[in-house]
């Protein structure tokens, strides 16, 4: 079970790498959806809730799995595709740091995250040192995506990657998951992405800072 979970985590990292290296928004959104699907399978492999657990535990697990699958695999990509189409863009122009160098930086961030995770003496419950490492790596990569990209939709995808990283860390560290945190985080992500999608349709393509300069007469 542990190594299947490890393979899944490695697949998550590979998807992160893919998302960093592409500037096609559609491919990026699909990669994020696939990440969501993999993430929904993670609780089954990691949480240790199996046929021998209580009914309520199993129900909670099923709810989390199905919820993650629907929200991250279906709803959020649908919202993002709608926003993408309404803005009429399919590719963004080259980000601040070129895509080639971004891949290398991705590798460095992964290495850094793995080093930090092995250096910290955190209570890696469920025997998952790799879960913590992959979660931290995903978090750093998501933050890097938010900083590096101009395009609003790419920044939202970076935010989703950050949230995935946080969820992986949660599953790696917590011995017994908190239903409130899982469901609450899912709903928050969904609503936040919906709001961001709505706002993105009203944003200018190259957003300039609003603000009052001296002599401005707007209110």
């Amino acid at each position, binding site marked *: 079970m542990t190594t299947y979970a490890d393979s899944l985590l490695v697949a998550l990292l590979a998807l992160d790498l893919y998302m960093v290296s592409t500037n096609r928004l559609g491919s990026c959104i699909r990669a994020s959806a696939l990440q969501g699907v993999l993430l929904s399978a993670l609780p089954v492999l990691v949480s240790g809730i199996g046929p021998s657990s209580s009914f309520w535990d199993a129900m909670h697990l099923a709810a989390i799995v199905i919820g993650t699958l629907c929200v991250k695999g279906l709803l959020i990509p649908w919202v993002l595709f709608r926003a993408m189409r309404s803005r009429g863009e399919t590719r963004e122009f080259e980000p601040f740091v070129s895509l080639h160098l971004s891949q290398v930086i991705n590798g460095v961030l992964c290495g850094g995250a793995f080093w930090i995770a092995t250096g*910290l*003496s*955190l*209570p890696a*419950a469920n025997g998952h040192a790799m879960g913590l490492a992959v979660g931290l790596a995903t*978090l750093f990569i998501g*933050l890097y995506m*938010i900083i590096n990209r101009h395009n*609003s939709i790419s*920044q*939202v995808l970076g*935010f989703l990657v*950050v*949230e995935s990283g*946080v969820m992986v*860390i*949660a599953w790696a*560290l*917590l*011995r*017994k998951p*908190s*239903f*409130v*945190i899982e469901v*609450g*985080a899912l*709903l*928050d992500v969904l*609503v*936040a992405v919906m*709001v*961001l999608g709505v*706002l*993105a349709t*009203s*944003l*200018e393509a190259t*957003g*300039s*800072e*609003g*603000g*009052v*300069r*001296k*002599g*401005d*007469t*707007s*209110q």
Partner: protein
Amino acid sequence: MTALFVLTLAIPAVCAVVTWLVRSPRAVLGICVVGSAACAVGTVVCAREAFSAPLFAIGRQLMLDSLAAYHALLVVGVFVMSSVYACYYFAPAIADGSFDARKARRFGALWFLFLGSMLLTLASNNAGLMWVALEGTTITSALLVCLDRDKPAVRAAWTYLLMCSVAIALALIGIITLCAEAQRVGPDSSSIFLWTTLRKLAPRLNPGTVRLAFIFAFVGFGTKAGLAPMHSWLPEAHGHAPTPVSAVLSGVLLNCALYCLSRFLPVVAQSNPGWTTSVLVPFGILSMVVAAAFIVHEHDIKRLLAYHTVEHMGIIVLALGFGAFPAALFHTFNHSVCKMLTFFCGGALAQRYGTRDMSHMHGTLRREAVAGGGLLIGLFALIGMPPFSIFMSELWIAVVGIEGGHVAAVVAFFCAAGLVFIAAFRHAIEMTWPQKDAPEPNGPRGRVGLGLVAVPLALLFLIGVWMPLHVSNMLASAASVIGGQ
């Protein structure tokens, strides 16, 4: 009493639904006032109970102890005043039709959802629920910021929502790390996520892990509270929001973020005594210095007030770092009241002059006596002029700092506060005195009720001069929660 507690938390949700069914904008604003007032009444009754013994509800998932009650009183107070101000603020927009029924309904529903999620944040004993509610406040307030849907507001709301959501995700890592460490040493039940349980288990937790959890939580909640260097979203969001929303954002939302942080403090202090000082004090000073630097050059009245907010959040964090918990809470109260007042007056003046640019505002005292005078005295109070209460709380913090031996920090504190004093004083005087060839203001009469200005000013003056025993006990009781007794 438990039933009243839950009912008070449910009132905002009910009112949000009710506003959605109403037709006229004026009725929506009226419901805002009435609903906030009802919530305030419930909160006051519950708070009176809570100061003697904490209230629990829903199987200990919700808790109102003295710290939560103190902050809750502040929240509902500011909300009631802001709801009343909203009636004045939106009056010109209702008259010319831009604040129509749809916008009003959106405003009303989001207003109450915002209030409800803030109260839920304060009332949660479950750390996960507290986090969810805080994220809820971020989303609802972002939608309120871009109520007008003009480009700068949408961009500001976007930056705000993205930055704060990412920050709160980091704070979640902090919460999870803390709870995971607690799960390692504590009972294997779902009560591990409750703050009461975490405080009980605090002495047994591994110090290194707790430090790491606090760092994540500090970065996350600190960004939400507007501490430098993570403050860049704040002037944009608070500057472009409608003024009642700005008042509430500056006044109480940031307090909620610091409340979440102060829930961590007693847990961290048990295993790492004195360590939080080394984290909180530098960032407090940095926030003050950065804010001072920007205040000198700022031209937009609302952005100026937003930078003042950054400065005062820095002062509160400094106080938490010094261990001056009653002083920090006192300063929280003073700042909320003063900021609310200045936003009301500043917003009214901006409406009257048709611009937020202060270099276009002259002779405010003559043109708009209430708003101009209120802004002048409010700015004086904000920068710490005696006999107003902000001066007293800053002095209290400085005294505790020197007693604790943090002399360098207190010197930096005074330097930054002095810089802010000079800069804001200059802005205030420039606005108030008439200028020979300044153009006439052409906006609608920006009115703000006399009561809205006079009551906060009187409160600030009174509290600055005389601290009633009752209030002092409230402060001590709330501070003891942070201090860990």
